[in-house]
């Protein structure tokens, strides 16, 4: 019965034109549009080196991390350099900005502040880089503090600060806060759009999960009534239908990868196994989202498809589908939202896989996705336990 149902579930999924459109065709079409739109931007923008200014405050002069980072990012010998930096007084920086000679300037007082007048891609990059450096600084600070604390605990009050500084730098070099990779070559901000595209495709798989549930519940569809009067266990039926949905979904994601890698030349980094892991887990999260939507709302397939699509698109928007600026704003101001946003978990997973040398942030995202999925399934189980209904 499990296999019988599985076979027919696959057959119905593959023949359902609307499902196939949303889960297979739509991401590929959208990806193609992205590619057309971005290839122009990339070409013109990549040649640009962003003109910025840095106000030479005492804080800046004393902040090794900021000083070194910007120096490296503005180094003329570096063919991938990101910035053309002027070191100026604050008043002069204001002037430069006013006369549009620079994109923005960095003012480092107690906290680093980026001053810009408009919001474009260049502005975002400057802010983004500054934010990354700030994160690095924080990590370095924490590390230094804990190193000092260790020394103090060892009752060693004669601390060699130079040694600690070097040690910390040594540690941060390998940590995910390492910014050595932020160069114009690597900071391909359009890449993130393609990552959100994968995230979108994973979450659209929710439509398949939703269909699997609707088809088997007496209170959701006429077919559900029919299977409910058959001498078969509801759990087994649902499991087999959901499995068919998952496999269909993975096939769709696989095709999307093939297309984006070979036709659109999207770079997912070198670690193929981890890319597959993330896509598999991401799809599972999407599937579970659809299952939960199907269980929680009483409506027909079309309405529920709408719900899954809306959740997905909103999540993808927040994680940077329509421009990395959004992801930057959310990450900075209300990070909790993107920590809970499955679209961002997937996007950020690919992002960290590509940009960072260590995998902490990647695994954090994978685990977040798993937790999200199990939460959704737990909610669904609660409503699926019902055998009879008050109303059908």
């Amino acid at each position, binding site marked *: *019965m499990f296999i*019988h*149902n599985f076979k*027919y579930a696959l*057959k*119905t*999924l593959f*023949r*359902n034109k609307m499902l196939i459109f949303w889960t297979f065709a739509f991401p590929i079409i959208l990806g193609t549009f992205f590619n057309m739109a971005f290839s122009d931007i990339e070409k013109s923008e990549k040649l640009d080196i962003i003109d910025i200014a840095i106000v030479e405050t005492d804080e800046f002069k004393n902040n090794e991390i900021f000083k070194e980072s910007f120096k490296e990012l503005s180094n003329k010998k570096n063919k991938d350099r990101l910035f053309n930096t002027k070191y100026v007084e604050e008043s002069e920086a204001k002037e430069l900005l006013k006369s549009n000679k620079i994109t923005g300037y960095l003012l480092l007082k107690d906290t680093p502040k980026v001053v810009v007048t408009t919001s474009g891609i260049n502005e975002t990059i400057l802010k983004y880089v500054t934010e990354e450096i700030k994160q690095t600084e924080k990590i370095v600070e924490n590390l230094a503090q804990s190193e000092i604390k260790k020394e103090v605990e060892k009752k060693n009050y004669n601390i060699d600060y130079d040694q600690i500084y070097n040690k910390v730098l040594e540690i941060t070099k390998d940590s995910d806060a390492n910014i050595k990779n932020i160069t114009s070559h690597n900071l391909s901000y359009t890449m993130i759009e393609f990552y959100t595209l994968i995230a979108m495709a994973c979450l659209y798989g929710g439509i398949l999960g939703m269909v699997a549930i609707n088809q088997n519940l*007496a209170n959701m*569809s*006429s*077919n559900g*009534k*029919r*299977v*409910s*009067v*058959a*001498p*078969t*266990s509801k759990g087994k039926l649902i499991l087999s239908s959901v499995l068919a949905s998952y496999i269909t979904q993975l096939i769709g994601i696989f095709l999307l990868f093939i297309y984006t890698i070979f036709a659109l030349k999207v770079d997912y980094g070198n670690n193929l196994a981890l890319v597959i892991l993330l896509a598999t887990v991401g799809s599972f999260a999407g599937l579970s989202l659809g299952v939960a939507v199907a269980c929680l709302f009483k409506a027909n397939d079309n309405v529920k498809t709408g719900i899954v699509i809306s959740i997905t698109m909103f999540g993808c928007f927040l994680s940077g589908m329509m421009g990395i600026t959004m992801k930057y704003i959310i990450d900075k101001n209300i990070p909790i939202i993107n920590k809970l946003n499955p679209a961002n978990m997937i996007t950020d997973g690919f992002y960290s896989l590509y940009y960072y040398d260590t995998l902490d942030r990647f695994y954090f995202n994978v685990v977040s996705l798993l937790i999200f999925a199990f939460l959704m399934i737990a909610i669904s189980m609660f409503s699926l336990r019902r*055998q*009879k*209904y*008050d*109303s*059908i």
Partner: protein
Amino acid sequence: MKNVIEVKNLTKEYKELKAVDNLSFAVQEGEILGLLGPNGSGKSTTINCILSLLNFSEGSIKIFGKEMKPDAYDIKKDIGVVFQDVAVFEELSVYDNIDYFCGLYIKDKRVRKKYVEEAIQLVGLEEFKNFFPKKLSGGLLRRLNIACGIAHKPKLIFLDEPTVAVDPQSRNNILDGIKMLRDRGATIIYTTHYMEEVEILCDRVIILDKGKIIASGTNAEVKALASIEEKVSVEAIDLDKKYIDEIKKFKNVDEVIYNNNILFIRYKKGKNNLDTLLDYLKEEHIKYNKIYSERPTLNDVFLELTGKELRD
């Protein structure tokens, strides 16, 4: 006769509405029981309660002598259901649809193949085996709906208005098929609001209104509940009023209406009504073209008991 279904004091409420009100009845092995009632009288709700799809506040339901529960698979394996709404997969062909639903009951592939073919034959869809539901007419779709519910040769079959929106020819096909199922030994519960279907098909009938049984028994038994004997219509051109007044005084006459050159007479219980009328018409040399006499229908019974028509 063994009781296949026993329903005792079944009550089902939707919020403030009592859809089924303290219903008790039994279905005997091998019979076709008609559940007749107007829209919203609780037919579908009753069936869904019996099938353990719906929660109900009170009552007990036994099928094949055992208590019916959602996981009573040994009972469910011998039941077939044709729901009121067509329940088929748009993405599957006629054959695949029947095979899918049949496969939930019958594991053996060879047996299943035979059963599916037989079901297709029973509902007369041989030429449409590879059609998809979208390409089927309303009547053919209904037939597919029936085939999906009965292909596994159940001992007990529920048919909930299987002929709604079906043209007369298709309907006759369907009714013949249902009789064939009964002849093969199945017990059948058939709901409808077409009284003609009940008269052709059912061994026994239960008339429902507002969730309550208002009459039950064989067709003849239920019709006997009617207080009228017959209804006679006579087509007579320009009938003089004095004749009409005279006829009103006849024995057993309940009501006389003359309208559009048709004289309509309803008789209460009694004998020789038509003879008396014909004699009178002859005596008075009244010319008439046609004359019909009708026995009371289930609708008349329903009308008398509830004051409204079965179908609006």
